[in-house]
């Protein structure tokens, strides 16, 4: 079996900020904040947190503050959104720099986006999705301000998104999708309300995401993709069921999607790598106990020791870290 090419991946993440001479770099500016979080978390899991300059990163995050809305945009001068606001908070917490945020204003911004149904809009333009609900719950929890959330209303919406297959969709009535399962189960875990999960049915559905080639898909009869290594595995870890799939085959699949020339992990073997799949590939490997990696907290998708120190650890269970 091939190995995880840590030095190469670290280098590819370092190079991300240096590719301003490529058009695609500028066309993805709306994802910049998320990309910084993906890169930083991947580096932490590979134990190279310092590979990116801390101060430069903090400066970037603060330059994305949208003072009109009271949240963070994805890039300087872009509008505040829950997706980028969560990433900003995650980055600042990992870098121990939360003191440069007006926490009261961010909390106000987040809470203002909850709808009467309990779900959250991503911004003031009103698109709703359980993803945004998770961003809100996660961010409030990281900021220690969960007590200001209407938990019953929030859980009430998640429960309505639960389908007969045990999974969850993006909104009421929507088909179960592994990424939406992660956000809903993650939110319930943070709110200590996992009793709302139909554990046997959902665990069965999750285990059936593994395909003969070892990779995981996000819905029945769809193709495998490295990012589901995290969406599916995180939910399985929270439900203590990671051992229900073939860890060795999934490990091989993720490793086979590495770009062995330039570093980075792709959605599947032979495709172009990117930092999104690099994080979720490395995250999946950490959950699977891959040797040499740091523990990942599957609820927050952040370094486990950090979440533990903050007193936020939930009862998830990754596979034991192997020594070789």
């Amino acid at each position, binding site marked *: 079996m091939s190995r995880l090419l840590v030095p190469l991946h670290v280098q590819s993440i370092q190079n991300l900020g240096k590719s301003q*001479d*490529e*058009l695609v770099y*500028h*066309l*993805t*500016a*709306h*994802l910049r904040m998320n990309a910084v979080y993906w890169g930083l978390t991947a580096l932490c899991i590979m134990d190279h947190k310092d590979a990116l300059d801390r101060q430069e990163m903090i400066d970037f995050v603060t330059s994305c503050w949208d003072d009109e809305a009271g949240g963070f*945009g*994805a890039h300087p*001068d*872009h*509008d505040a959104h829950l997706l980028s606001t969560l990433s900003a908070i995650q980055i600042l917490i990992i870098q121990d720099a939360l003191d440069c945020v007006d926490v009261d204003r961010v909390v106000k911004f987040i809470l203002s986006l909850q709808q009467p149904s309990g779900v959250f809009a991503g*911004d003031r*333009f009103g*698109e709703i*999705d359980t993803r945004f609900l998770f961003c809100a719950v996660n961010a409030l929890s990281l900021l220690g301000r969960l007590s200001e959330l209407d938990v019953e209303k929030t859980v009430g919406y998640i429960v309505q998104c639960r389908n*007969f*297959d045990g999974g969850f*969709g*993006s*909104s009421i*009535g*929507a*088909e*179960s*999708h592994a990424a939406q399962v992660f956000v809903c189960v993650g939110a319930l875990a943070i709110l*200590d309300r*996992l*009793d709302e999960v139909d*554990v*046997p*049915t959902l*665990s*069965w*559905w999750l*285990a059936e995401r*593994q395909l003969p080639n070892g990779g995981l898909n996000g*819905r*029945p*009869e769809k193709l495998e*993709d490295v990012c589901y290594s995290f969406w599916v595995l995180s939910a399985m870890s929270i439900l203590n*069921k990671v051992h*229900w*799939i*073939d860890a060795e*085959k999934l490990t091989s699949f993720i490793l086979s999607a590495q770009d062995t*020339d330039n570093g980075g992990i*792709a959605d599947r073997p*032979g*495709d*172009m*790598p*990117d930092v*999104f*799949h690099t994080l979720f590939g490395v995250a999946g490997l950490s959950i699977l106990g891959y040797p040499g990696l740091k523990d990942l907290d599957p609820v927050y998708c952040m370094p486990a020791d950090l979440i533990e120190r903050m007193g936020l*650890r*939930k*009862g998830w269970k990754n596979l034991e870290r192997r020594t070789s």
Partner: protein
Amino acid sequence: MHNVKRTPQSKEAIEARKQKEQSKIREYLALTDDILNRKKSKDYSRESLNKTTQILQINPEFYTVWNYRRMILLNGIFPGCSASEINEQLSEDLSLTTTALKAHPKVYWIWNHRRWCLENVPTGPGDAGAPDHLGWRQDYWKKEMFVVEKMLDVDARNFLAWSYRRYVLSSMPIPRNPKTELTYTKRKIETNFSNFSAWHQRSKVLTSLWAKGELDERQSKEAEFDLIKNAMFTVPEDQSAWIYHRWLVGPGHDRDILEREIDTIKLLLEEQPDSKWCMESLVHYNMLLIRNHVSSVNTAELVQECRKLLGELRKVDSARRERYNELGILAPCLLSSLKATDPVQRKDLAQKRDTLADSAVSQGLTEREGRLLLFSDYYYPWERRAITVACSYRTGRKLGAFSTCIRQSCSRNCKQNSIAASVAAAAVLRNRNLGGLETREQVVRDSEHKTMEKGCAQ
């Protein structure tokens, strides 16, 4: 990035491409700066609107620009427009999104802008009271069904398109007969049995029709069983059909249906002796028989059969062997717990509470069996909750969360809470490894106190 092939490129080729891109980058950045500056200065002119069109055609994921565009329309364009001009402008915006969706069918922001346009269509062309007062809106919504069907023709699993379809169906000013959705999903399914999105939609439509009493549940279920049988026998390796079948069977209260479906699957298994889904489903339905009809079926035989099938499954589907192992332990465990704590047979609350507390501690709270009990959906949700609480406490990290759970359990409004509390309390009592003695006793006292309170209230 999804589905973009990696092609090895020489250093020279990469350099050449970068060189070629430089002018494009300069243009794109200049346009971006111009637009973001206009946005900052709250420039809501027609010229700015045209700039947003220009950049969104290059990059439809630029959400800030979609936002800005809506601000321009609301603050700069619409105020000086007649209703019919607004209507025309929204038509233009809809065409912009149609073009963008063809190239980027999975970009949320585009679908989102489309919804915004539709929700802002003015009334007209007729005045209030005229028959065509809602004419524009109706025309749009009718067209939307056509658009979304085109999108689903291209990719029948696009979940954004399916969500949009549900949105359109629920927003149309004159709702369609919901039964037409049954026809549509059936067409999609018959084109491709693997289309689980269509099966899912079908389950939602049927559930809603049954709940409203617009369709006879029993009769239409039989028709569904025929449809699904066709799918199962045509593509027995396709999980879509089996998942749907499990929904149709449901919790298994109807013994006749359960036994009939088991017989059907056994027939298929004879034809396809290696079929994982046949075996997996047989195990599940046998367990439902045990769970719901314990006094009228041969449980020993069913448990035996489950064990045999699970043994086979471990071989044909080894990736999930651990799950089959645990199911194998669960079957007899389920049987004994059914006999010990059948909630129907035991009416005496105290006795039931004690039994539950004991069984939770004695079988539930060892590491492995705790998992199994959590797994068992025989337990009512509140019993599961109690066990979840107890187990999470046992894992040793969650004293705070544990107290929260107890509090939440107790604050719910029925007798079941007292059981939850007592199970948890018993668990704490027996557990000597965790927490300080004082905390433990406090939790127990609290739980007992709540239990008594609830007991007195009954």
